[in-house]
Structure formats: C-alpha cells, structure tokens
C-alpha cells in the first residue's frame, strides 16, 4: 500500500507522503492576483510606450540622448518608466518562478535556478531604478 518495494519503471518516483503542513500564508494568492492586475496595467503602459517611442511624432528616428534627457526631466515619465520597469520585472520573475517550479524536478536544481533568477532580476530592477533617478543630462 505504501511505496512500491522495487523502483517503478516510470520516470516519476513514487509520490512522497503528503507533507501538507498548515503554514498559513497568502503568498500564492497575492502572487496570482498580482499577475492578473500587473498584466492589465502593463498592457496600457507597454503599448503606450511603444506608441510614443515608435509611432507618434516622428517615431524612432527622433530618439537620441536629448530626447531621453528631456523625458526623464519630467516626474510623469519617470513614474511611467519606473512603474513599467518594476511591474514588468516582477511579473516576469514571478512567471519564471512558476515555470521553474513546474519543470525543475530536483529540489537543489529548483533552489539554485530560483536564486539565479532572483539575483538577476533584483540586479536589473536596482540598476534600472538607479538610472531613472540619477540620470544626468549634462553627462558627456
């Protein structure tokens, strides 16, 4: 009735005895909800961004250092870009976390893949935030 006496032929091991301890946490609920809400917000932010950058007012040809400097002198565009950066990065990281949970079979692999993911996305978020706030239009 319990684990088979000989190793099964299937690629999966006999499922472990359920270890469903009742740690009370709404983490999975909030991350599920976050994916939906950030997805909707990102549709407007990203499509708006693409429209402004590539289509309106001369399109991609007019983008240069001065254009970027001009935009980031306004708190509105700073907030827009910051929001886009954070939402997209957390949305993507959470999605990758789910995919790793789905596909990495060994606990060790899963742990290290997730660590790599968190470090990489943390670094990107920090770097992006730093650039948005410390951008110096007089450089160079």
């Amino acid at each position, binding site marked *: 009735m319990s684990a*088979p006496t000989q190793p099964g032929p*299937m690629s999966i091991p*006999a499922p472990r005895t*359920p270890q469903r301890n009742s740690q009370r946490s709404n983490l*999975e609920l909030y991350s599920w909800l976050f994916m939906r809400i950030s997805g909707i917000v990102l549709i407007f932010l990203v499509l708006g961004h693409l429209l402004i950058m590539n289509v309106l007012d001369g399109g991609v040809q007019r983008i240069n250092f001065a254009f970027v400097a001009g935009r980031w002198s306004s708190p509105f565009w700073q907030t827009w870009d910051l929001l886009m950066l954070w939402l997209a990065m957390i949305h993507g990281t959470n999605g990758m976390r789910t995919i790793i949970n789905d596909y990495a079979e060994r606990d060790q692999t899963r742990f290290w893949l997730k660590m790599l993911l968190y470090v990489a996305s943390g670094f990107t978020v920090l770097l992006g935030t730093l650039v948005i706030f410390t951008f110096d239009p007089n450089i160079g």
Partner: protein
Amino acid sequence: MTATVETPAFAAPVASEVTFRIRRFQPELDEEPHWEDYTVALYPTDRVLTALEKIKGEIDGTLTFRRSCGHGICGSDAMRINGRNRLACKTLVKDLDISKPITVEAIKGLPLEKDLVVDMDPFFAAYRSVLPFLIPEGHEPSKERLQSAEERARFDDTTKCILCACCTTSCPVYWTDDQYFGPAAIVAANRFIFDSRDAGAEQRLEILNAKEGVWRCRTTFNCTDACPRGIEVTKAIQEVKRALIFRRV
C-alpha cells in the same frame, strides 16, 4: 421469422478488425514498459473495454486492467486512449479512428504497477486531505437540514464526480508536482464549500490556499476535457479561487 422480403431499413452491423496498441508492463518480467499490438474484431458500437476483455479472454490472459461496473459509474477503468484520458467503458469504437492502431496506456502521474493499473493511493490521499464530507454546525442534527432547489443547484456540477482520476492524471502540473492536490480533490472540496448545509468552507479554503493548492492551477482545461462525467472542472477550480479572493482579501 415471417416472410419479409423487402430490404431491411437498417443494415446489419459489420464487425471490423481493430488494432490496439497497448503499453504493457509486467513488473516480474519487464525492465521497462513496451508497446504491444493486438487485433480483435469489433462492432462500431463496442466499447474499448469490450476490446480489452476480448484481448484478455482470447489472446493474452496476462493483460491487466481495472474494471468494475462497465457503465461509467464506478470510475475504475480510466486510461489514456489515443493520448486522452477516457473511461474504457464509455469510449465507443465508432468514435475512434480505426484506420490506425488505437493506443491504450495507463493514466500518467501515478506510479505504474502493472499494464494499465496504477497506484491510486496518492490520488485518494489528496482527496481525503480536503475533508470531503459534510461538516455540520453546532450539535446538529436536531432536525432535517433543509435546502432550497437553488442552493442545491449551486454545487450540482461537482456532485457528479466518480473519482476515476481522469482529470487529475491529465493535469500537467500534477505530472511534475506530486504535492499538488490535483483537480479531483478540488472538485470534491468545491462540492462542500458551496453547500449551504456545510460549515467547513473556511477550513477547506485554508487547505486549498496553501502553496500546493488551487494557485498551482494553470487553467489548461485538460481536466475539463478529460472528465467522463462532463464536470466543468476548471470552472470549479476557478470558483474556489474566487471564493478565496473575495472572502478574505
């Protein structure tokens, strides 16, 4: 027979040769499962279960599979037929493409024991862990638990489950994550969460809010497609998610 010489309105059914490609595994003989072909004569109205019984009775008596009622109620003969989870007793030959061999294998995600038989213990362990029984309020019953037709209709869909494991073993999350409850357990929880007579909804929602609970569902609809009882399984899971979000957030 009286003398009726006119051509009959219905043509007599014709049996045709149908090949079944069955994934065999005999733990005392085989290292690995392998495919084997069997050809039997079947009528279009025959079931896949009939074919398996013919093969076992007439060709190879070692073929092992579960069956009990043979009428789609006991949920014993869930198997993967042409890559889809189906009950062998509810799948008719006329609904399959018999120009190619029909593949039959055990359901995935549970340990294979022999041929088409898997170890169902993890499946029932998940089922038991959502408390699939009525949890009454106070010291009842002191009188009948009355319920309106509307209240009964609220959870009617999920009462149809026969615990065949077609849905759970069609779920790609369940294949890789053996701690996930799986669709069938969530259907069982849904059946009591939305029952007006039951007082255990909070408890069950708490259980399904865990890391391996409803939030692992990826909404692939494999479960809804697989259910031989026509339960909208994915919808039932979404209802539990909604209950979690709107009651407690």
